[in-house]
């Protein structure tokens, strides 16, 4: 299993993602360079957090146009798992791989703190290791994390079960006071209709080590590993049958 982490100019959580994959998951991790034209045979792609191109103009807008994103789009279209965290989520929205947009926090301030997340979907490639309704504690650190979509789109996302994480209180209550950035319907993370592209503002890769006080992010990495193992196992089994 090989997982790629894209480095755009200005990415700064690429290292954290890389370490999480390597240390916490024990899987092979490789960096992918924004100018590259191939994904080096990876089984899944992370678009990490940071300030790609300084977040100038709009967060993620310029990175969405870089050469590697053409490959990421093709990979996603073929069903490959892609996870965008923080700036990565912004890039996915700007690139049209996920619906909606991330705009400036309602408070107009950058916000860095641990938040609680309600797991709305525990049956995706990214969340199978969680329980539905589980409450996670994961840090956020962003200035433009307010999720926006028009009401029709939001209804559609909810109807399709595309809302994966919502901001909530410690007891799992979705309440305005627990929403750190004013996101519509407290959306913290969504998935595409096909179920292989995830975007989320909080940073699971910062919650994988007990020494740093939190491990709730581990489930996301383990879910992906389980998913990939399943896919590969299935593929492997298939060839065996064919033999």
């Amino acid at each position, binding site marked *: 299993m090989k997982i790629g982490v894209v480095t755009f100019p200005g990415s700064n959580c690429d290292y954290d993602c890389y370490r999480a994959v390597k240390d916490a998951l024990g899987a092979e991790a490789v960096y992918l360079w924004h100018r590259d034209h191939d994904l080096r045979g990876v089984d899944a792609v992370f678009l990490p957090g940071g300030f790609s191109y300084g977040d100038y*103009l*709009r967060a993620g*807008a*310029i990175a969405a*146009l870089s050469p590697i994103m053409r490959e990421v789009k093709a990979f996603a279209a073929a069903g490959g798992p892609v996870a965008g965290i923080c700036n990565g989520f912004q890039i996915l*929205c*700007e690139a049209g791989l996920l619906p*909606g*947009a991330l*705009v*400036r926090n*309602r*408070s*107009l301030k950058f916000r860095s703190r641990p938040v609680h997340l309600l797991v709305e979907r525990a049956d995706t490639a990214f969340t199978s290791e969680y329980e539905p309704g589980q409450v996670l504690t994961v840090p956020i650190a962003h200035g433009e994390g307010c999720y*926006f*979509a028009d009401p029709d789109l939001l209804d559609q996302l909810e109807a399709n079960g595309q809302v994966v994480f919502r901001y909530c209180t410690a007891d799992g209550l979705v309440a305005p006071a627990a929403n750190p950035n*004013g996101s519509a319907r407290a959306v913290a993370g969504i998935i595409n209709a096909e179920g292989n592209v995830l975007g989320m503002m909080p940073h699971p890769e910062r919650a994988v080590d007990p020494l740093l006080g939190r491990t709730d992010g581990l489930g996301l990495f383990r879910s992906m590993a389980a998913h990939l193992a399943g896919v590969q196992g299935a593929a492997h089994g298939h060839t065996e049958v064919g033999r």
Partner: protein
Amino acid sequence: MTDFRVEVRVTPRRGILDPQGSAVQGALRSLGFGGVEEVHVGRLIRFTLAADSESDALGRVDAMCRQLLANPVTEDYDVRVEAPAAA
């Protein structure tokens, strides 16, 4: 080829919450400026563009807006192109 002066005005789409606009309105009020309503804060992008004609320039700037300068999910834009005073 002429160097046109281009101005792109990007504003929050009508009906979208504009927390910055409300914050500015509140701040203006607290500074004693009354009678201010419907405040919206947007982005202004200015540049010069070498183009054959005004319509050539307009067409290209519109493409720029669609591809990069504005996000259709949240923003509206309008474009002004001006030929140099004495070309």
